[in-house]
């Protein structure tokens, strides 16, 4: 039983009751070759008819999608850091170029996120509450970057871009807690919401340790990446992978993707990028490994990912035991309270 609720599980589709299922498929997103073009976001929206969720600017970076959610099933993160990527020559040493503007934008954006109705977890891009007077974000600047701060503050820089998506976990928190059976495990080992079943109870939103699934405004049902279930059934690869111009998003059989990813990490280490690491590839992690896993160039939290997520179901048996104890105490207290009273 413990193997079914947490830990490694080789054949998720068979475990879910599919007879003789096809091999489990997934994504390997190699962020080291992502160029931040957002073709995946667009292709996903087009194919799946995901509605528009705001066309304003978030004021924090080139990322104006913000987060995964009911109306964004792919999200390209954008991070600028004052350090070098591998042996890459930034050429800043001889230029009057100062530090990254990212801390300034973060300082401006973060307090507004805290004040937003859902703490910044909402997608989109409506104006954030907070101060009303204009605030300099450091861009566009009319001085050359670094002019004001001088040569001593010049730094290297690198851009991290990563296309995030539903992880299609081996032990999916959303699927486990769904009380209607709307969320189900497909024959491909992916996790999909049946839109004709979902009654919008919202339990999956809090069950997901990655903050992926959300309820769509005005629709009331839970929405997330289906790994293009319809395209898989027709023998096609998902829209995002098809559209990715650099093969940062790779679709395929999970076992093969894991081997390919391990080779790619080794290759990057050899090329002087020791910070390259895989995320979500390990079947022994808290969710039994992800169907969609990543090659990252920094800690997961830098990309907005939880460093060591655990499916809440892991502790389900222990929680019910405690609840059983509390229920027994409740019953004993009730009996004891009236036992001493005697019959009237």
């Amino acid at each position, binding site marked *: 039983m413990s193997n079914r609720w947490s830990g490694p599980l080789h054949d998720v589709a068979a475990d879910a009751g599919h007879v003789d299922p096809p091999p489990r498929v997934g994504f390997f997103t190699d962020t080291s070759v992502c160029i931040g073009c957002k073709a995946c976001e667009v292709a996903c929206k087009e194919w799946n008819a995901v509605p528009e969720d705001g066309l304003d600017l978030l004021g924090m970076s080139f990322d104006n999608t913000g987060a995964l959610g009911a109306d964004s099933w792919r999200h390209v993160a954008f991070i600028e850091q004052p350090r070098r990527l591998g042996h890459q020559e930034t050429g800043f040493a001889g230029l009057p170029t100062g530090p990254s503007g990212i801390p300034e934008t973060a300082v401006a954006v973060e307090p507004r996120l805290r004040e937003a109705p859902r703490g910044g977890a909402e997608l989109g891009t409506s104006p954030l509450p907070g101060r009303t007077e204009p605030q300099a974000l450091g861009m566009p600047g009319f001085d050359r970057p670094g002019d004001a701060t001088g040569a001593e503050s010049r730094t290297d820089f690198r851009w991290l871009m990563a296309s995030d998506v539903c992880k299609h976990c081996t032990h999916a928190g959303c699927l486990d807690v769904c009380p209607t059976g709307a969320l189900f495990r497909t024959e491909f080992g992916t996790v999909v919401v049946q839109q004709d079943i979902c*009654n*919008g109870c*919202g339990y999956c939103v809090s069950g997901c340790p990655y903050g992926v699934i959300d309820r769509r405004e005005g629709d009331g049902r839970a929405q997330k990446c289906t790994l293009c279930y319809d395209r898989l059934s027709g023998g096609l690869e998902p829209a995002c992978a098809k559209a990715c111009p650099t093969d940062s998003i790779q679709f395929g059989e999970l076992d093969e993707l894991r081997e390919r990813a391990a080779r790619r990490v080794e290759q990057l280490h050899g090329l002087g990028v*020791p910070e390259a690491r895989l995320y979500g590839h390990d079947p022994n992690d808290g969710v039994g490994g992800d169907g969609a896993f990543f090659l990252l160039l920094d800690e997961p939290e830098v990309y907005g990912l939880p460093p060591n997520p655990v499916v809440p179901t892991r502790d389900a048996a222990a929680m019910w035991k405690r609840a059983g104890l509390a229920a027994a105490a*409740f019953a004993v*207290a*009730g009996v004891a*309270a009236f036992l001493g009273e005697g019959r009237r």
Partner: protein
Amino acid sequence: MTGPDEERTAAEAGVVAERPSDAGGSAAREAEMFQGGRRRRGGEQTVVPEAEIESYYGRPVLKPPVWEWKIAAYLFCGGLAAGSSVVAAGADLTGRAALRRSARLGSLGGLLASLYFLVTDLGRPARFHHMLRVLKPTSPMSVGTWLLSAYGPGAGAAAVAELVPRRWRRTWPARLLQRLARPAGLGAAATAPGVASYTAVLLSHTAVPAWNEVRDELPFVFAGSAAASGGGLGMVTAPVAEAGGARGFAAAGAATELLASRIMEHRLGLVGEVYRTGHVARLRRASEVLTAAGLVGTLTVARRGRAGAAASGLALLAGSALQRFGVFEAGVESTKDPRYVVIPQRG
């Protein structure tokens, strides 16, 4: 993670310091940020040392619950119904008619309010019956749906039996109902402990830090809270002479709730912040004061007069309600700050 952990300064990593204390940003602070200075949050007292984390522009990692205040209200009403059913069964078996009647009506009222809150909080209320398609042991909401389905008819039948007008009491359906009332009420009381405590698992079986990390204590907090409210309602509505059992049940519940709640709050690490600060702390302090006052009143003035009993009962009811809102809001708050997700997972 296969990559080696590299030694990096905060400046290299482009650290986003947590929770800027003001929205603007003085030149000095911005200069500090350029050097990756570690800023400390001013004001709030915390037990746990402040830790610096990197985050994606301070955005939350998790989605906050989409549940509204109605779910907190449901937690209270469901507990009230369960507690009342136990009081009603005790009153029935020991021959206390007034207490039995008010407790049965209280359990039906709590149940109906629960159903209203649960259904209207759905994104698609017309599909509430989809909950009955499956029984999933991994979904506390599914288990709870079936618990309520088992509990509801008994609690309802027992309460309706109390509502039959005098002139219909001699008709055969009314006599049948009267005969069914006791087994129905006892059936409801048998499932009531489950109804009172499963809601703790409902909250804890999530990725929400402030709910998941209190999974050991929350069942006792909620079961105690349910007993305090059920007993409290009996004290408010029944004569002092009949309410002895209700007082005992309420006192045991209130004491359990106070103790478990204290232990829960003090055992928590970093995420304890959300329980100890802001509007959550105000809700919880108010709950604690009301429940403690209600407990003292139950043991003293509630035995002597109707006014004292009513005041003590109302204090317990209010304390129980605020307890639910406090825990609910703590969970919502804990999803909004990435620190509560990232730091415990970094361990």
